[in-house]
């Protein structure tokens, strides 16, 4: 099982800040996005397939090819605007 987090605008768009996801097979970040979009539909595609969506795996920035392992924390978030 992995934990998936959504922040800021994405959390609001999906109405969801945190979900668990059972990893039945090894997945890359790109695979995970496809699975979530195929399960969730249009609203999820808007969030996960946007050009500037950022992903972190275990709190380190990850691109689509990064492998996700059981127990990982995966986060999706929009470009940051702090400071």
């Amino acid at each position, binding site marked *: 099982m992995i934990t998936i987090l959504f922040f800021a605008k994405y959390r609001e768009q999906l109405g969801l800040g945190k979900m668990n996801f059972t990893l039945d097979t090894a997945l890359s970040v790109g695979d995970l996005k496809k699975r979530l979009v195929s399960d969730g539909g249009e609203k999820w595609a808007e969030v996960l397939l946007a050009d500037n969506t950022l992903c972190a795996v275990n709190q380190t920035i990850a691109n689509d090819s990064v492998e996700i392992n059981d127990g990982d924390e995966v986060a999706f978030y929009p470009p*940051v605007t702090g400071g």
Partner: protein
Amino acid sequence: MHSRVIVQTDDFDVAEECRALANSGRCGAVTQFVGVMRDRNEGDDIAAMELEHYPGMTERSIEAIIERAGERWPILAATVIHRVGSLLPGAQIVFVGVAAMHRQAAFSACEFIMDYLKSEAPFWKKECKADGTERWVDARDSDAQALNKW
């Protein structure tokens, strides 16, 4: 090099942070940046702001930025404090302070840390406009461009 990274809802005291940074006989220069909430943005009056972060990753990413600054310049200490939660115009949002023996390193490292914090540290701002509507602040191209100088 001593680093201190804090994310908190409370305000901070710039004088106290300055004293702590200068607390080394070798320190000759402390450079500090304070980000302040403006009452207008993108042509609209802003009544309040809500700041969200990614607990854990935010602190780690700022620590990593300070580490990189410490590899580039001879700095003695760095402090970053970033507020989250609800803020009103005029509020202090972020503090970046750097102590060094000489001013050049303190200035460069402080600006470097602030520039990278803006582009890498996971914080998000939501504005509440004076007319009651809300919007998430968009990332600025100028912040991405600011990294080119490093």
